[in-house]
């Protein structure tokens, strides 16, 4: 009776370095795997900074194209994810500056005037909670408008992406103390804006907060 020896199939996931080497060797599929691996994260960062879905999509694509073009220059001193995130942040920052420049000549003063839909965490959110959540989001958006580009990026990476100060410092190529100073200034402005929000919600039970 013949017996078949079953070799365990090695399902090892190729590392970033392997995929980079394969891409540089002309294997386009390897780069596709890298795109698939990081596109969500890159899109999320771009969206966190720009708060614009179309721009986030464009920036994500541009980031990967730029990374592909300069992949040979990637020295591996940092993680590929960090490198991609830096490219994304730089592109998003450029976009913020361009928009700020354009807003000088238009009435759209850095306008994040869109009202975002409420995404309740609870399965059965009550209307009041939704309203408060909406108010809080609007207050944060108002506060963000008063921030400089640098403060905005730092605050958004902290607020939306929940990056630590050290991570933000590494991504932006700044010292941790500088990031902390920017974040404190940003928080001060957000506090001021949210202070008004807190005043507005007087009379509403604390549970609603």
């Amino acid at each position: 009776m013949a017996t078949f020896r079953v070799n365990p199939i090695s399902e090892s996931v190729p590392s970033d370095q392997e995929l980079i080497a394969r891409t540089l060797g002309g294997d386009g599929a390897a780069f596709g795997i890298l795109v698939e691996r990081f596109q969500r994260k890159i899109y999320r960062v771009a969206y966190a900074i720009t708060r614009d879905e179309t721009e986030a999509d464009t920036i994500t694509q541009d980031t990967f194209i730029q990374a592909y073009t300069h992949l040979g220059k990637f020295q591996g001193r940092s993680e590929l994810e960090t490198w991609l995130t830096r490219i994304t942040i730089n592109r998003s920052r450029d976009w913020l500056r361009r928009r700020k420049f354009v807003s000088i000549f238009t009435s759209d003063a850095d306008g994040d005037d869109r009202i975002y839909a409420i995404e309740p965490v609870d399965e059965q959110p009550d209307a009041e909670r939704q309203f408060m959540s909406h108010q809080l989001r609007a207050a944060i958006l108002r506060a963000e408008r008063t921030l400089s580009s640098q403060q905005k990026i730092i605050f958004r990476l902290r607020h939306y992406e929940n990056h630590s100060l050290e991570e933000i410092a590494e991504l932006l190529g700044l010292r941790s103390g500088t990031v902390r100073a920017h974040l404190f200034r940003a928080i001060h402005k957000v506090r001021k804006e949210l202070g008004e929000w807190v005043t507005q919600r007087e009379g509403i039970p604390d549970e609603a907060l």
Partner: protein
Amino acid sequence: MKHFSEAELLETYYTQPGESMPVMMHLADCSECAARYERLERKLREAAACHTEKPATFWTRQRLQIMRRVDAQNAHAISARRTLRVAAAAILSFFLGGALVYETVKPAHQPAPMVKVTPVTAQPAPAPSAADIHDAWQSEELQDFHNVVEWESWVADNKTTAHQGSSL
């Protein structure tokens, strides 16, 4: 016991957890503030919820677009490289062909011939031939005056004749 304001709790939320030790210590003791901080944290996380939960088709489309652009970039690079090679080959052939033609047509290099200088004696200018003499009187411009001149010469002849007759 002093309770912390929402602004202070907000600052605690955005700075590193554990960064504001007085606040964190207070939260450990005060259940009321701890509950408020927890609610604030939950609300801020809700507010920060990102709209990136896209359907799989979105990511597939995005990936395909990226790969298409990568392919286009590769094709462009190959095309540019080929064009560069063709241009280089054309320039090289042009110069090589030019050099070949030059080598073919170029006259053999010879030393310059010695020029012997001999003194030249002054020679009289040759006399103009009859054909070279231009008779201005025969030009077309003066043909109209021929009759007048002829008449004048006739009058003169008559006078001469008359004079000769009278003298006779």
